[in-house]
């Protein structure tokens, strides 16, 4: 008999095959990380029930099985290989296998050259991802599938990794989108993720086999794959067991299973993993720690009829709703904290009604909302004030420590830290989309391991050797945990390790502090996650300082909002809130519809909340058009102007034919140059359409490296679009060097901008048989440029173009480029002057030329103008400073402009810089630090916005509002000083 054991990241599977490969026994169980015990138990069970002490051929497979197999001398089979063995035996006609596991996604091409693809280290898990999303929707995986069947539409959810998708899903929940639609969107995201990440240009067709848990259990997922691939795949019998079946077929060594089980005991004894010191050395140490933190509390008084006017603060967070009622002396009368169950409004209504009912005649003086759902809640119930959550937290922290200089808040989904200098927020750190999921991550993890989160956290307090899990994205942590489990780490040590890693993530990933002194010594920690004493302890240990954790750590946003309302109502002499009265609340109803806006080409997915009294609240919009009905005012937006300039280059029919230019990456700046060049030579220059989501999706299957930056990945879509336009040639040159503007030590392009055409040529099948011109060209040497183009490049593709013609074309090209840049600078000056005349702030939205692409910047420029500031670009002001020394090698043309723009900002009172950074941009790891240093030396705030294909602007908005709030506060302080 043959036995195959498949130990995956979440489940353990085992099969026993008879002489003719018939299935005698199989099992599929969750192992809750008790891999070793479960494996032993299984081996013994099979021995007792099936083998009765006889020997059997055995091999082990699965991502968590490797070390285990090694230790007991049983042959290990790589799981994809194992799948292949089984498929060849049981489903020999298969062309392609798609297998999704707990944390892996694999595509296996069987015909025409065997190839196996597994998800990259960034793409994260899929089964675990679906579980996480289901948890987020408060459903089981089954329920989510059922819900998805009822979907009417789908939303765009980033398909890169689970954490990204999560930050798309959460706002949808908060905005009240239908759960059914979200569920279906999640499955669609999984499909996109798998295809984008794994197909890498190879078409998936023929007989498709679906394997693994998620594809077996979810009909909608299978249907989504069918639709996306335009195939009808099959999910075979025993689709969960293929890896185990393959392992059994592959087995060629005999073992007595009970002996193998016994050998595993030895493995448990020898396993090691990297560990950290325990959180507490002794029980006493813990007791002192506990007592110290219990002492930081807000006075609470009874909520009676004599409490006077009250102020209500509501913090509608990403996963929870918090509500605090205070009296005129800032004392707490009532608090409420609960999960938002996907829709905060009914919960808040219930709470408010409860307050009205229990306290008839209560005088509500103010109601202030904050958090992710601030706008929605404020509009729904006609609250008085809305406050950006960062300021709310700062207000609350000051209550506990008036001279606080650092606040860190770790909530369910987000992490916020701010530094305070001179009584104003001087620096804000929000977790980038890639390291979010702090608190909810712990929760999901606890659940995955079969624990309640509180119970799980407490386990870690007295762990003897906490696992060292590193400080990266949570998806990586999944595999680190897997490794630790394999090495025999106990649940206690894993729990402690996770708590420590949350802290390390905050310190080294989000804040990137190198020493505690740098952050300040007066620290207030807050957010629900700090109720977890293991996290709190880990934070103090890592920082080497005792911090204050208020007893209302999880309610600080709401408390801060209430305090703000208290102050504002006094300032405005307001004694009664405008909030709905009891009757209105009673009849309050909300209806949510999702529609596609037709106002412009963006086609935003709008979520429209309609309330019982007929008022509407619209979210998901990138501009004010669906709300006000008016077109956007772009007079103070240089990004919009740049887009207009580029759109004005229309093809002019020429004698020599037509040339296509993809409007991506470097062309966002060099289009004028090349347009003039080719037009002068007699070619009609057609550009690819402006980027859209659809254009990206059309090209995503040919992306070979899923961790390249989004602007680069978008170019596949542009090439696809051009290839369908019946052009004589497509032109996209490789440019090692860019123009030299004399601002840096060299004038390179980054490797991606420089050489991406090579990738397109190598991976886009639609270019086959097309004239794709991607020669290496040096526009930085105008004289040689003419010569090289005329003698070496052009003759390869077109006959009869004389050097004189090329000279004329080059002259036109350089002139057009200069004129284009001059226009931008002139317009920049106009905008700056006009903004100053109107007394508006000026934001330098600094990035690369291709950040002008609306699909890349997601309309952040409009977001800024809607906040009443003017937007200019880095290249419109970079010529205003001379070359200056930097502490890094200043060798890229685009980046030199960043430094110059930052430098210029430090000389302008009303000008501040916001840097756009594309996820995956390696070069920006260097430029962001340098830009920050330049600004901070000039006493300016630094704001960085990380962008990717992610479309949610919620976090960006918080950042911008915090920036504006901090700037206002700075100005007020300066004005006070002046007085």
């Amino acid at each position, binding site marked *: 008999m043959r036995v195959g054991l498949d130990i995956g990241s979440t489940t353990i599977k085992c099969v026993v095959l008879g002489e003719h490969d018939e299935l005698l026994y199989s099992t599929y169980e969750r192992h809750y990380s008790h891999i070793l015990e479960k494996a032993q138990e299984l081996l013994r069970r099979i021995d007792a029930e099936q083998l009765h002490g006889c020997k059997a051929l055995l091999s082990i497979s699965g991502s968590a099985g490797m070390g285990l197999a090694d230790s007991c001398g049983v042959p290990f089979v790589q799981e994809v290989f194992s799948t292949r063995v089984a498929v060849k035996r049981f489903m020999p006609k298969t062309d392609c296998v798609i297998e999704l596991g707990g944390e892996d996604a694999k595509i296996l091409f069987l015909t025409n050259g065997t190839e*196996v693809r597994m998800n990259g280290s960034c793409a994260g898990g899929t089964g675990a991802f679906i579980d996480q999303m289901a948890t987020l929707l408060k459903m089981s995986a089954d329920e989510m599938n059922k819900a998805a069947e009822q979907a009417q539409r789908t939303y765009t959810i980033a398909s890169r990794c689970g954490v990204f998708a999560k930050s798309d899903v959460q706002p949808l929940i908060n905005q009240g989108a239908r759960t059914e639609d979200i569920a279906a969107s999640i499955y669609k995201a999984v499909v996109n993720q798998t295809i984008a990440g794994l197909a890498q240009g190879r078409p998936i067709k023929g007989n498709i086999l679906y394997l693994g848990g998620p594809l077996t259990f979810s009909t909608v997922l299978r249907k989504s794959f069918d639709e996306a691939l335009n195939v009808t795949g099959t999910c075979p019998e025993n689709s969960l067991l293929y890896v185990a079946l393959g392992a059994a077929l592959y087995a060629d060594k005999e073992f007595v299973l009970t002996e193998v089980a016994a050998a595993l005991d030895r493995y448990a004894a020898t396993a090691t993993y990297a560990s950290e010191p325990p959180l507490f050395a002794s029980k006493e140490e813990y007791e002192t720690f506990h007592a110290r933190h219990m002492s930081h509390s807000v006075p609470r008084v009874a909520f009676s009829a004599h409490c006077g006017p009250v102020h209500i603060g509501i913090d509608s967070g990403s996963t929870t709703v918090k509500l605090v009622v205070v009296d005129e002396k800032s004392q707490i009368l009532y608090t409420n904290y609960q999960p938002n169950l996907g829709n905060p409004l009914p919960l808040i209504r219930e709470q408010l009604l409860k307050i009205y009912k229990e306290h008839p005649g209560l005088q509500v003086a103010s109601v202030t909302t904050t958090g992710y759902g601030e706008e929605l809640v404020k509009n729904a119930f006609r609250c008085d004030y809305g406050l950006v959550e960062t300021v709310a937290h700062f207000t609350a922290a000051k209550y506990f420590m008036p001279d606080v200089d650092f606040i860190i808040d770790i909530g369910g989904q987000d992490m916020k830290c701010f530094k305070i200098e001179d009584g104003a927020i001087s620096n804000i750190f929000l977790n980038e989309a890639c390291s979010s999921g702090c608190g909810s991550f712990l929760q999901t993890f606890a659940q995955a391991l079969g624990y309640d989160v509180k119970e799980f956290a407490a386990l870690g307090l007295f762990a003897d050797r906490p696992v060292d899990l590193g400080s990266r994205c949570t998806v990586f942590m999944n595999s680190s945990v897997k490794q630790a489990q394999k090495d025999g780490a106990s649940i206690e040590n894993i729990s402690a390790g996770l708590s420590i890693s949350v802290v390390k993530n905050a310190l080294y990933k989000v804040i990137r502090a*190198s020493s505690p002194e740098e952050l300040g010594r007066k620290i207030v920690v807050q957010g629900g996650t700090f109720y977890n004493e293991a996290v709190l302890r880990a934070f103090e240990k890592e920082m080497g300082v005792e911090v204050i954790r208020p007893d209302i750590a999880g309610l600080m946003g709401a408390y801060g909002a209430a305090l703000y309302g208290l102050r504002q109502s006094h300032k405005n002499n307001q004694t009664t809130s405008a909030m709905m009265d009891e009757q209105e609340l009673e009849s309050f109803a909300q209806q949510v519809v999702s529609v596609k806006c037709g106002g412009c080409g963006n086609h935003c997915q709008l979520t429209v909340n309609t309330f019982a009294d007929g008022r509407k609240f619209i979210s998901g919009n990138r501009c004010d058009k669906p709300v006000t009905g008016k077109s956007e005012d772009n007079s103070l937006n240089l990004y919009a102007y740049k887009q207009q300039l580029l759109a004005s280059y229309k093809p002019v029919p020429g004698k020599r034919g037509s040339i296509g230019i993809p409007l991506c990456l470097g062309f966002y700046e060099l289009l004028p140059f090349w347009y003039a060049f080719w037009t002068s030579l007699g070619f009609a220059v057609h550009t690819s359409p402006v980027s859209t989501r659809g254009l990206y999706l059309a090209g995503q299957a040919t992306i070979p490296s899923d961790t390249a930056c989004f602007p680069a990945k978008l170019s596949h879509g542009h090439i696809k679009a051009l290839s369908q336009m019946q052009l004589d040639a497509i032109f996209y040159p490789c440019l090692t060097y860019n123009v030299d503007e004399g601002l840096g030590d060299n004038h390179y392009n980054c490797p991606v901008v420089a050489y991406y055409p090579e990738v397109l040529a190598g991976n886009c099948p639609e270019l086959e048989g097309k004239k794709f011109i991607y020669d290496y060209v040096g526009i930085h040497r105008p004289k040689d440029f003419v010569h090289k183009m005329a003698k070496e490049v052009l003759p390869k593709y077109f006959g009869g173009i004389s050097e004189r013609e090329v000279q004329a074309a080059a002259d036109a090209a350089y002139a057009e480029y200069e004129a284009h840049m001059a226009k931008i600078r002139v317009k920049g000056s106009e905008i700056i002057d006009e903004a100053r005349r109107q007394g508006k702030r000026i934001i330098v939205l600094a990035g690369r030329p291709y950040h002008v692409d609306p699909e890349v910047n997601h309309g952040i420029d409009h977001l800024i103008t809607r906040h009443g500031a003017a937007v200019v670009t880095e290249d419109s002001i970079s010529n205003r400073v001379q070359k200056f020394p930097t502490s890094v090698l200043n060798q890229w043309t685009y980046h030199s402009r960043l430094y110059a723009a930052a430098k210029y900002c430090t000389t302008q009172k009303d000008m501040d810089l916001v840097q756009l950074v594309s996820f995956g941009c390696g070069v920006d790891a260097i430029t962001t*630090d340098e830009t920050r240093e330049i600004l901070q030396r000039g006493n300016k705030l630094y704001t960085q916005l990380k962008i990717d294909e992610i479309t949610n602007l919620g976090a960006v908005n918080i950042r911008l509002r915090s920036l504006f709030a901090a700037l206002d506060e700075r100005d007020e302080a300066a004005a006070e000083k002046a007085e």
Partner: protein
Amino acid sequence: MEYHYPKFTPEMKKTHTILIPNMAVTQFRLMEYALRCEGYKCELLGNCGSAVAQLGLKYVHNDTCYPALLVIGQFLDALNSGKYDLEHTALLITQTGGGCRASNYIHLLRKALVKAGYPQIPVASLNFSGLEKDSGFQMTLPLARKCIACIFYGDMLCALRNQVAPYENEKGAADRMVDRWIARLGRALLAGKGFTSREMKHTFPLIAKDFAAIPVTRVPKVKVGVVGEIYVKYSPLGNNDLQKFLESQDCEVNFPGLMGFVQYCAFNMGEDHVLYGGKLAVKVGTDQFLNWLDSVERAMLKAETDAGFYAPGPFKELVEKPKGVISLGAKMGEGWLLTAEMIELVQGGYGNIVCAQPFGCLPNHIVGKGMVNKIRALYPSANITPIDYDPSATRVNQENRIKLMLAVAKERLNAPVEAQPLTAEQLAGGAPQVGATV
């Protein structure tokens, strides 16, 4: 605002111990002798462990590439160890001067030193591009010649060792031979000998003969080539001891030599002239330099094949390999060289390839992962797996992927698909191994 950092002054040559990060172990061991011969006091760092990566994470932007994190972490860990007199310690780091962010390592290191409380430690740059002209550490002609000799010797020792070790009858014989030759070459270098092209050409056959004399039993083994970003390709610290892992899986490994990278860097300077114009003198100069290297290289390769070993083609042939796949203009990071090495390996019978890069390595999006499809189209037997390295990528995942590649390789080894015609290299006298692996 002017940015000040301590310079490595000429006087420090006498007073300071220079710490060198470890990358290509054998080559760097030899280079230590070359530096000592030139009057520098230096020490090759061997410290590893989790503190290295942790310190890197703490003091360097976390999105910076893994090699920078590790190299800087390794320096800081060494400085923290208390083993060194901080007033008399300097650091040496390589700088390529290309369009990749690696040229910025030195600046990141200086920033990190200030943050970590070692602002007084001077950093010297090892480069061939004339960066940091005001430093007391300069690539003088004698030093350059010695370094080049060390790289040749080191490459040869590695190439031969890797072809012998998997088959040796007595475990460790090949490694001992490497040690013996390093000691011998080191003595010669310290005495100011052994680095001229005449001496090298004389020594190469002696080395080859010694390795050929090690008793071996040749059995079919999976042959794996390793290419990648230069640091994670060579450094055991960077690639989780990839070589050891592959050997533990019963493979013969092939790491294309470090000299290829030197030649590639020199070649690119000339290629810039070809593509974009500029000073002809640069092109003439680099051509001369490459010709000189070529004569030494060919002597080395001949010594290898004469002794019955496999040797790749010389650089001048390598340059021809990427034709139709990638342009020679792609010169950032490992550029076209990486693609060329993959093709060379496939043609040379090392069709199972690990392409190692730091997570998010920009050039490798292009020349590594971006070219795999094209190479596969030309050579359907190419079995390439890209592996990403970063502080949190776990070994189990990396090894899992490699094992998958090896599983396909082993299957082919056991059931050779069809006999491929021998390539020119094999006919030219390589040692055809038993069983076609392709």
